[in-house]
C-alpha cells in the first residue's frame, strides 16, 4: 500500500511502540500533523507551549521509562528551540528522537522562510542526525534512528524531513530484522584477560570503593552491582545520575560523591586504594582537581563508551563494555572478601557528616529547603519520582531525598539545564502514569519553562510542582557569597505571585511558609488528580554544604559549620 511520508512517520512510531509524542505544529511539519488525525486513537500528541518543553518532556519520558521519547517541531525556529533539550539529552545519554519539518527540498539552501540548517546546528549535540531527501529512505531512516538512540550509549537522534518528503507517496514496508550499521558496533562483553585483571585488582585491594553511575541503570545492572558490592564488601558511592542504581538505605551505600556529595564519600575516594568506576565518566563535578584525585588508588573503569576510558582519569584496567554483561562475566569468579577496618573508617566520617546535618537545627521562623525536601520524602514514603531543576534545590534533593528504586530521580546533570525540571516531570508522568511524580524546582528555573503550566492543565497531567522560592538564583548567589564577596549581581529575583499564576491556569495551589504546614500541603497535592502547585517560601540565603569549590582538591571541602561554630 502506498503511504505519504507523513503517514510513514506515524506507522514507524507505532512499530517502535511509541504511544505519545510531544510537539508543536508549524508550516513545514503540517503534513505530519495532518496525518496525526488518522492515528489519534493510537498516538497521543501533547501540545506544548514552547518546543524546548517538548524536548525536555521527551527526555523526562525517556529517563522514566528507558524507552525512546519523541518530540516534534517545525523547521527553523521550531527546530532551534529544541536545541537546549537535545544538548541536555546528549550530555546525560538520554534516548530521544526529534522529528523536525524542513522546507521543501528545492528551497533548501535558499534562505527560505523558516529555513535553518538543522542537521548542521544539531550536529555536535545529537548522537546522530539525518536529513531525509527521498521518501523511500524514510522508513529505514526512522528505524535506524530508533536503533541508534536506544542502543550502546543512548542519546538524542534528530530526523529532519522536508515538507515535500512528508507529502510524497511511496510503498510502505517496515524494514525487518536487526539494523546493522557498518560503523556502529557498541561493545558488549569484556575479554577474559580484562576480567581477570579486574578481579586481581579487587582481590589485592584493601580499601576499595565502587563509583556507580548512570550506566548501572541504563544497562539494568542493579542486581549485579549489589552482588559485587555485597560479596566483596565494597562500599558504593553514587553519582548524581547514578542515584537509584542501588537502594540508598543499603548499609554499603555511602551516598553521593562530588562537589556537593557526602564528605565521607569524597574522603573515601581520596583514601581508597582501588576505584571501581562503573558506568560513570569522571565529570569535573565529581573529581575536583584531577592532579590530586584518588592519588593512591588503582582504577578499574567500565563504560560502554570506549572514548570515556582514559579521558579524564587513567585506568589501570579499562573495559569498554555493557555493564550488566561485564559484571555477569566477573561475578562467578569473584571471591568473598571483607574490609571491616576500611568500612569502619568510612562510618566514622559518616557520623561526622550527620553531626553537621541541617535537619535537626532549630530554625524558628525560617523554612529551610532541606526541611522541605526531607518532609516531601517522608510524606511520599520516599517512593515518588522526583524531577528536579538545577541549582541548590537540586543538590539538596540529592542529599535529602534518598532513592530506593532506579529511575526515580530525574535531573539534568551534565548540562545543568535550568528549566528542565517541570517539563521533564510532565514527560515522566506520561511515561509512568501509575507513579507519583513531583517536579521540585527553584523559582529561577521554573520561570524559564513555566509556560508549560498550560500544557499540564490542558492535558490534566497529575504532576505536583514544588517551587522552592528563595527569591534568588540560589546557587549563583552561593558562589557570589563565597567567591565574590557577596556582590549579588543579577541574582535577586522579582517573582510573580506563584499561587496567583497557578490560579490563572486554574491549577490548584498552596503556599507554605512554615514547616508544620508542609505535611498538609503535600497531602493536598497528592489528593488531586491533576496538576498542583505548592510554593515553599524558604530562607533566602541558604547554603549547600559540603562544597568542593570548582577545581579544588576533592578532600578540600567547605563544610557546614557545626552548631555553635558560627
Amino acid at each position, binding site marked *: 500500500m502506498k503511504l505519504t511520508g507523513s503517514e510513514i512517520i506515524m506507522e514507524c512510531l507505532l512499530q517502535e511502540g511509541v504511544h505519545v509524542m510531544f510537539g508543536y505544529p508549524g508550516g513545514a511539519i503540517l503534513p505530519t500533523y495532518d496525518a496525526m488525525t488518522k492515528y489519534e486513537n493510537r498516538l497521543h500528541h501533547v501540545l506544548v507551549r514552547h518546543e524546548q518543553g517538548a524536548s525536555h518532556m521527551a527526555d523526562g519520558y525517556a529517563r522514566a521509562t528507558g524507552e525512546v521519547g519523541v518530540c516534534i517541531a517545525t523547521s527553523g525556529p521550531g527546530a532551534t528551540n529544541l536545541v537546549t533539550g537535545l544538548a541536555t539529552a546528549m550530555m546525560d545519554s538520554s534516548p530521544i528522537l526529534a522529528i523536525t519539518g524542513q522546507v521543501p527540498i528545492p528551497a533548501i539552501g535558499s534562505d527560505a522562510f523558516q529555513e535553518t540548517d538543522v*542537521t*548542521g546546528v544539531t*550536529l*555536535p549535540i545529537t*548522537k*546522530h542526525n539525518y*536529513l531525509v531527501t527521498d521518501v523511500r*529512505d524514510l522508513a*529505514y531512516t526512522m528505524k535506524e534512528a530508533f536503533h*541508534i538512540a536506544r542502543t550502546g550509549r543512548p542519546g538524542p537522534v534528530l530526523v529532519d524531513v522536508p515538507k515535500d518528503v512528508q507529502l510524497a507517496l511511496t510503498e510502505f514496508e517496515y*524494514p*525487518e*530484522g536487526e539494523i*546493522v*550499521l*557498518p*560503523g*556502529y558496533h557498541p561493545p558488549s562483553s569484556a575479554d577474559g584477560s580484562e576480567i581477570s585483571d579486574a578481579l586481581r585488582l579487587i582481590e589485592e585491594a584493601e580499601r576499595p570503593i565502587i563509583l556507580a553511575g548512570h550506566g548501572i541503570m541504563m544497562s539494568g545492572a542493579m542486581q549485579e552491582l549489589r552482588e559485587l558490592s555485597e560479596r566483596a564488601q565494597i562500599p558504593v558511592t553514587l553519582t548524581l545520575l547514578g542515584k537509584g542504581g542501588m537502594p540508598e538505605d543499603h548499609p554499603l551505600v555511602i551516598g553521593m560523591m562530588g562537589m556537593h556529595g557526602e564528605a565521607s564519600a569524597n574522603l573515601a575516594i581520596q583514601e581508597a586504594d582501588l576505584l571501581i568506576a562503573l558506568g560513570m565518566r569522571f565529570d569535573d563535578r565529581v573529581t575536583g582537581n584531577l592532579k590530586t584525585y584518588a592519588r593512591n588508588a588503582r582504577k578499574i573503569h567500565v563504560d560502554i*563508551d*570506549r*572514548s570515556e*576510558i*582514559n*579521558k579524564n582519569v587513567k585506568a589501570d584496567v579499562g573495559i569498554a563494555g555493557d555493564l550488566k554483561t561485564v559484571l555477569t562475566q566477573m561475578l562467578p569468579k569473584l571471591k568473598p572478601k571483607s574490609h571491616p577496618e576500611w568500612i569502619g573508617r568510612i562510618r566514622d566520617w559518616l557520623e561526622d557528616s550527620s553531626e553537621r546535618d541541617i535537619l535537626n537545627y532549630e530554625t524558628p521562623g525560617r523554612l529551610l529547603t532541606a526541611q522541605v525536601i526531607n518532609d516531601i520524602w517522608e510524606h511520599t514514603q520516599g517512593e515518588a519520582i522526583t524531577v528536579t531543576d538545577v541549582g541548590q534545590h537540586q543538590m539538596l534533593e540529592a542529599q535529602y531525598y534518598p532513592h530506593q528504586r532506579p529511575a526515580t530521580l530525574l535531573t539534568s546533570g551534565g548540562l545543568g539545564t535550568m528549566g528542565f525540571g517541570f517539563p521533564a516531570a510532565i514527560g515522566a508522568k506520561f511515561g509512568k502514569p501509575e507513579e507519583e511524580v513531583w517536579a521540585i524546582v527553584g523559582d529561577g528555573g521554573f520561570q524559564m519553562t513555566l509556560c508549560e503550566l498550560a500544557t499540564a492543565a490542558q492535558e490534566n497531567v497529575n504532576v505536583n510542582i514544588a517551587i522552592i522560592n528563595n527569591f534568588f538564583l540560589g546557587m549563583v548567589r552561593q558562589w557570589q557569597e563565597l567567591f565574590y564577596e557577596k556582590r549579588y549581581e543579577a541574582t535577586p529575583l522579582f517573582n510573580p505571585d506563584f499561587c496567583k499564576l497557578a490560579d490563572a491556569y486554574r491549577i490548584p495551589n498552596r503556599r507554605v511558609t512554615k514547616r508544620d504546614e508542609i505535611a498538609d500541603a503535600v497531602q493536598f497535592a497528592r489528593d488531586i488528580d491533576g496538576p498542583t502547585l505548592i510554593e515553599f517560601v524558604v530562607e533566602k540565603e541558604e547554603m549547600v554544604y559540603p562544597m568542593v569549590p570548582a577545581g579544588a582538591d576533592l578532600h578540600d571541602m567547605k563544610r557546614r559549620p557545626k552548631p555553635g561554630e558560627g
Partner: protein
Amino acid sequence: MTSQVDINKVTVVALVENEPGVLNRIASLFRRRAFNIDSLTVGRTHKPHISRMTIRVVAGPEYARKIATNLQKLVNVIDVRVLDNEPHVERDLALIKVRNDDADSRNTITEICDRYPARIVDVGPKVAIIEMVATEEILEEFIDEVRPTGIVEMIRTGVVSMGRGTRIHDTNFTRRDLAKIQNQISAGGNGNVI
C-alpha cells in the same frame, strides 16, 4: 619506502561512508574536542560508497588513540586505525610554482628536480610548475631547497598513508541493503589478513 614519522605527528586512517555531511561530522568533532589537524585528506576507495581519510595530527600516540575512539563513535565512520608503530607507506603530493625567468634559476630548478622524485609539469616564460610526490619529510627537504629560487604559489594534498603487507584496511559493507549486509558483515574484514 617506509616513512620516517615525525615524533610529534601521528597518522590516523579512517574508513567512512561516502555520504553527504560526513566530512563535516569529522571536522566538527576535531573542532569541538580541540584536536589539532596537521593535514586531512579524503577520497573514494575502490568501493564508491566508501571513502578513506588520512588524518595527520600533531600529537603523541596517546592523544591519537583519544582521537581514534572519538572518531569511532561517529556512526558514519566504519573503522579507524592509528598508524604509529605499523610499517606503512605515506605520500604527499605538491604542486609548486617557481620563478623561471632567468637561466640561473632554470638550471638550479632542473638540477634540484633531478635529485628528487620531482618533475616539471608546466613551463612558461616566467614561471614553471613542479610536481612532486614523496613522503612528507622528503617533500619538506625539497621545498627548502627550492625556496631560495622563489616559490610564488604552492598547494599540497596532505599525506595519504597505507599500511604495508597483507593486513588490509577495508570493508565489504553495502548500505541500505539488509540481506547483503547480513551476508557480508562477517566477510568484511577490518584489519583482516587476505
